[in-house]
């Protein structure tokens, strides 16, 4: 296996939360790699460490020990500003609660990462509109989040996550707030993105969601219990 193909390389990763006297070991030594273009789900019961792992993968938080290489960059030692830069350029987030800016229309929500990247306004809007069209809601670009359905909001969030052409798309329970019909629409969109070569990591409780991916990591108490292709017996 060629290591250059790996978009994520994790070795001996631990995360310990120290809240006062109490120390919680949320991650206890994870080692795995994700290849470019893979579509992976992370599953596990509540408290198993999924969110902690997502925060570390998403460069919102640093691991306590171990190494994390993202797209060839060792991000374990970066400072806050460098992490912000990695989030901006290498990562796209999709949240359960959509997390769009409420006062701002769909188009300007999607231009936001480009704004922080310092792109000129015209170019920002052109690219953002392109992404919105790609996820199927180009014609809703001038609507505010409150004027959009849950499914539409999640599409806007996906467009925003993709607008900087990130190395990895991270989704935390992306269908958790959606009814089954819209959920399957979003999952179909993920399938399509995966087919075009996107690297996608989805955290989910839902076996149905996990089955759409190609590989499932199952966690328990901060360790990976199993790492198997989707469809293999759990």
């Amino acid at each position, binding site marked *: 296996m060629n290591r250059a193909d790996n978009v994520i390389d994790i070795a001996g990763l631990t995360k310990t939360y120290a809240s006062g006297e109490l120390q919680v070991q949320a991650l206890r030594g994870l080692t795995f790699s994700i290849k470019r273009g893979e579509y992976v789900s992370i599953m596990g019961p509540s408290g198993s460490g999924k969110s902690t792992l997502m925060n570390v993968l998403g460069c919102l938080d640093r691991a306590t020990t171990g190494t994390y290489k993202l797209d060839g960059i060792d991000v374990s030692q970066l400072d806050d500003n460098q992490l*912000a830069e990695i989030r901006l350029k290498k990562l796209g987030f999709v949240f359960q609660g959509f997390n769009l800016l409420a006062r701002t229309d769909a188009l300007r929500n999607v231009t936001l990462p480009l704004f922080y990247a310092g792109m000129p306004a015209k170019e920002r809007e052109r690219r953002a509109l392109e992404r919105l069209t790609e996820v199927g809601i180009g014609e809703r670009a001038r609507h505010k989040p409150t004027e959009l359905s849950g499914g539409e909001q999640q599409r806007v969030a996906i467009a925003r996550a993709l607008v900087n052409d990130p190395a990895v798309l991270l989704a935390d329970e992306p269908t958790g707030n959606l009814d089954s019909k819209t959920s399957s629409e979003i999952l179909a969109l993920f399938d399509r993105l995966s087919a075009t070569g996107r690297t996608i990591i989805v955290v989910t409780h839902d076996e149905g969601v996990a089955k759409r991916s190609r590989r499932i990591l199952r966690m328990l108490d901060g360790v990976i219990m199993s790492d198997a292709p989707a469809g293999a017996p759990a």
Partner: protein
Amino acid sequence: MLAYFIEAAQVLMANRTRSILTLIGLVAGVATIVSVQVAANGMAGAVSGIFKGTNASTFIVFPKITQGNAARAAFRVSDLALVQETIPGVVSVIPYSRSQTIVDVGHHRIRLRFGGESDKRFSTAPLVAGRTINADDVAGASSVCVISDNAFSRLFPEAPSASDIIGRSVYVGSKRYVIVGVLGKTKIDTAALGLDISTDVAIPYTTFYKNYQRGGTFPFLSVLAATSADLKSVEAQTVKLLASTHGSQYQAFDFGFIASIIGSFFNIVGLIVGAVGAISLLVAGIGIMNIMLVSVTERTREIGIRKAIGARRSQVLLQFFIESLLLSAFGCITGMLIGVGLGAIVDRGFIARISGVTGSIPWLEAIVIAVGFATIVTLVFGTYPAYRAAKLDPIQALRYE
């Protein structure tokens, strides 16, 4: 950078009512300071204008109040010639005599300022009809008078022009005086300021003495010097001469002294208003800080989203800083315009009426004050909320409901 301003303006517009309420204190503070600045400018012009219009080379001498023997200190008629002849630069010395008296022209009886005048003219008002009091009037203590513009318009409202009343008489008590001259307006209406320096009905000071102070003494001397240039030295010599003659102590009082009193009065007013303005700005600044902190708290989740997306600390800092800046700039500019307006109303409507001098509006000072306060308020009170926003932890901020 422009995008930050647009963004900030949109946020502030979305919270319009709150933004405006926040700004009331700032607007009031800046308006107060600027209006005082504008009015003070007008006042400075007015004070200089008033003293341009008065005879700057006159002064009054009177005994110091703190001494015992008032009778010995009072002036006698012999002092007039003594001062005039002994001290170089003194043109005329007369008893300072002014009283509010009923002046009667038959159909009108009006209370006016009545007093003695020298042929050397203590008044600076221009002559519009007839003649002024001359040396013969003084020498002969004749029963003539020169009336002011104020006296003319009130005693003879029906007279078509000043020259028509030359030769007519006015009565003060049982005495009759023939009008020989009418004076015009002094440029400055000093009476409106309470400076009782113009006489409405002036008779020769010798006549005044003969009719009203006969054989008596008087408490004040009016001295007219040739020039205002070394008035202080003339004053000092006069005081010294009188002191050695009477064995009493005297002091002199001139318009420069009044000007300095007025000046220091306005300095004190300026200081008080400045302090009030500074306190209101402090309160306003705290108000802005408070509203920005509320805004940061309310928008914790938004800040989390922005940071998750990849906003650097400095970018979040800048966003909130610019919001504070816009808020305080808007408040300061509004306050400046209101302040200039109020100051101009005070100047044009009040000070200029009294002084005849309209102060120019000190735009530069007003702008400097507004920009200075906007900068200070933003730096002092906008930085902390922006810093709070910038240092929020994205994970916690995203979890915030």
